[in-house]
């Protein structure tokens, strides 16, 4: 084994070797950084999708949508269904919601207006909204409370006005919510949104009903009961758990993110290949240097450690740069993938950044092992002849 001072000396030597070959080191680090940027960004998108679509054990939220309709513009349900749904056993609350989106297709910058009854919203979101913002929202019929991602993306604060999808609203404030569907939403008064649009009969048509059940175990039972109740009506419904509703709406995005995950894996393979190639080429051009070190008393272990340390330093530095670039890009751009009125936020994640750095270092370590073994087994005399 080797002592702490020897290990520290080897790390110093490895660092000097990298620093004094700036072109090679810079190119390898840049390559790793780009690959890890890709990996972390794809992973952030993937984690956003999972967060929005994975069913939680205690899930109590249902979405009642018009049967065989997949877009907020075509899902039209009579607002009068509210009372019928409220009477179904197991239902806790029912909120009629009118949804208007600035773009019905998949996009990275969509504003989703959610028209909700004022009293229902004030009850459900009291803890997520400051008293001043809630007061301003309740006092103005054209007021909107914005989800945090939307406010950050559009740089909007209380007192601003903004227009999207033909709706002009006053910003009463920003809600503090972790719920994925709240992130890119602008909550407005239901009657205001219905008036603004003049579609489907003022005050009578909504896009969907957000339903809460009393017991998570009864989620499926309540959904079935709602759909059965309206099956023979002029506007039959399809009721799903909220996460399943998002997953259905986001099918295309999930497929795209799944493909992007393959790109992420390719990025990881690129890190491995890049470091392995750089280290192999480096050691091939340094056979004499290895022989010098062996002559000076460096053991196989010293040499292997030197090579592996160089690889891990390359991976670590490239990984940190790539992961930080990804984190701050996501944090700055504040992207949310929205389609058919449902939003999937892509949040910056410190965990993913740390994971990216760890992956880069682990792959670099693995990539350095074979060159390390080759270097440590080199014959001294043969190295001098090279």
């Amino acid at each position, binding site marked *: 084994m080797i002592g702490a001072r020897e290990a520290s000396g080897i790390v110093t030597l490895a660092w000097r070797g990298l620093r004094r070959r700036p072109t090679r080191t810079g190119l390898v680090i840049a390559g790793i950084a780009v690959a890890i940027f890709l990996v972390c960004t794809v992973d952030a998108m993937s984690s956003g999708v999972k967060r929005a679509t994975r069913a939680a054990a205690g899930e109590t939220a249902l979405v009642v949508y018009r049967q065989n309709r997949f877009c907020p513009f075509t899902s039209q349900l009579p607002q009068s269904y509210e009372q019928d749904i409220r009477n179904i056993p197991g239902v806790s609350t029912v909120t009629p919601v009118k949804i208007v989106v600035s773009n019905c297709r998949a996009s990275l910058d969509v504003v989703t207006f959610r028209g909700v009854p004022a009293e229902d919203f004030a009850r459900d979101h009291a803890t997520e909204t400051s008293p001043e913002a809630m007061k301003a929202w309740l006092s103005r019929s054209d007021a909107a409370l914005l989800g945090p991602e939307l406010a950050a993306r559009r740089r909007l604060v209380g007192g601003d006005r903004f227009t999207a999808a033909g709706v002009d609203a006053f910003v009463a404030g920003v809600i503090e919510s972790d719920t994925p569907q709240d992130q890119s939403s602008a909550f407005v008064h239901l009657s205001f949104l219905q008036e603004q649009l003049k579609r489907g009969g003022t005050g009578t048509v909504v896009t969907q009903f957000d339903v809460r059940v009393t017991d998570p175990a009864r989620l499926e039972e309540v959904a079935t009961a709602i759909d059965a109740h309206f099956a023979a009506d002029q506007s039959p419904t399809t009721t799903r758990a909220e996460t399943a509703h998002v997953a259905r709406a986001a099918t295309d995005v999930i497929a795209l993110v799944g493909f992007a995950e393959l790109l992420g894996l390719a990025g990881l393979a690129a890190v491995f290949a890049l470091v392995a190639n750089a280290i192999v080429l480096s050691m091939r051009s340094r056979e004499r240097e290895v022989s010098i070190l062996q002559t000076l008393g460096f053991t196989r272990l010293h040499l292997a450690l030197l090579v592996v340390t160089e690889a891990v330093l390359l991976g670590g530095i490239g990984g940190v740069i790539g992961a930080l670039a990804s984190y701050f890009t996501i944090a700055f751009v504040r992207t949310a993938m929205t389609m058919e009125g449902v939003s999937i936020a892509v949040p910056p994640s410190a965990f993913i950044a740390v994971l990216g750095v760890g992956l880069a270092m682990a792959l670099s370590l693995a990539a350095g092992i074979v060159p390390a073994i080759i270097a440590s087994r080199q014959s001294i*005399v043969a190295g001098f002849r090279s």
Partner: protein
Amino acid sequence: MATVEPIIRCSSLEKHYERGGETVRVLEKLDLTITRGQFVALMGPSGSGKTTLLNLLAGIDRPTAGGLVVDGQDITTLSRAALAHWRARSVGYIFQLYHLVPVLTAYENVELPLYVHNISRRERHRRVCEALESVSISDRHAHYPSQLSGGQEQRVAIARAIVTQPSLLLADEPTGDLDRASAAGIMELLGRLHREHGQTIVMVTHDPATAVHAQRTVHLDKGRLVEPHGVAS
């Protein structure tokens, strides 16, 4: 001062290579004893086995047969790791082409062998400064090898060889790549190390003018010792 204690004892030392299905006998039944504190020149024509013998003495190559005890250690029986540790402690090696690491400064090149010694950074610094001082190259400590003349590079290489205070200093044609003035300076330096510190030095050279600095000259021809009895004169 030199003592009669042997530092190198080769007995029936042999080194053979297989090349193209043929056995090349580089060293044949070589018996040689060198006492501690001696300055020995190894001379002989090209292919006589001088550098091979030096490599065997340094433990960077292994003999095919025979015994080799250096500084009290039978190095033919050591494992690869033990041999590396032994080299780090006991041997300083000076190459004809200096073999400095190009991306390290003179100071860092001299510091290199100390990385495998479990000593503090302060002690490392003290020893490097002392070694650089003793070869009169302190003022070039921050220069890279490409910024040094051949003579200066060889001085740095000598500092690197002596920084671990080895019991045996081996030099393979240390002036072979230098002009006359630089060569004279290097030989003066090796002579001083021998005189002032009683350093045992074994030096390979082609040049009789260089060999005169040594106390004793050993001649090799076709892998055999030409010097009568191979004992100190």
